[in-house]
């Protein structure tokens, strides 16, 4: 959408979009990297990768939201 055709409603829509997608981004970051860590743990018979994966996924999801919406 070009800049001059932006209406005030578009801002509200973008904001709602961002706010509603944030929880699913955080959850999916945790699930994906936590799941990868869990599988690594099962494979290597360790217990450290799952927490590391969860924290890494959270950090990456926060970074993704920051780059997408924080500008």
């Amino acid at each position, binding site marked *: 959408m070009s800049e001059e055709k932006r209406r005030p409603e578009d*801002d509200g829509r973008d*904001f709602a979009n*961002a*706010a509603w997608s*944030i*929880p699913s981004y*955080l*959850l999916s970051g*945790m699930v994906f990297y*936590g799941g990868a860590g*869990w599988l690594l*743990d099962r494979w290597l018979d360790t*217990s450290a990768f*799952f*927490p590391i994966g*969860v924290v890494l996924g*959270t950090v990456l*999801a*926060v970074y993704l*939201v*920051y780059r997408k*919406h*924080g*500008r």
Partner: protein
Amino acid sequence: MSLLAEVSGNVTAIGYGLAAIGPGIGVGIIFGQGVQAIARQPEAYGLIRQNMLLGFVLTEALALIGLVAPFIFQAI
């Protein structure tokens, strides 16, 4: 001594309930104050919006860490 009260069922649910109090209050404060800020200064909308979203992400992350924390401590 007789038992005064007993907890049955899954204790992690209570843990998540406690862990969700803080982020709940935090998200309320962020959006409440954010809406107030936009109402006071509509021309600063872009800046306020951006900071509202960042604060919301960081607060929501805490709530979701509370959700997965029981699984982490089970694994360890």
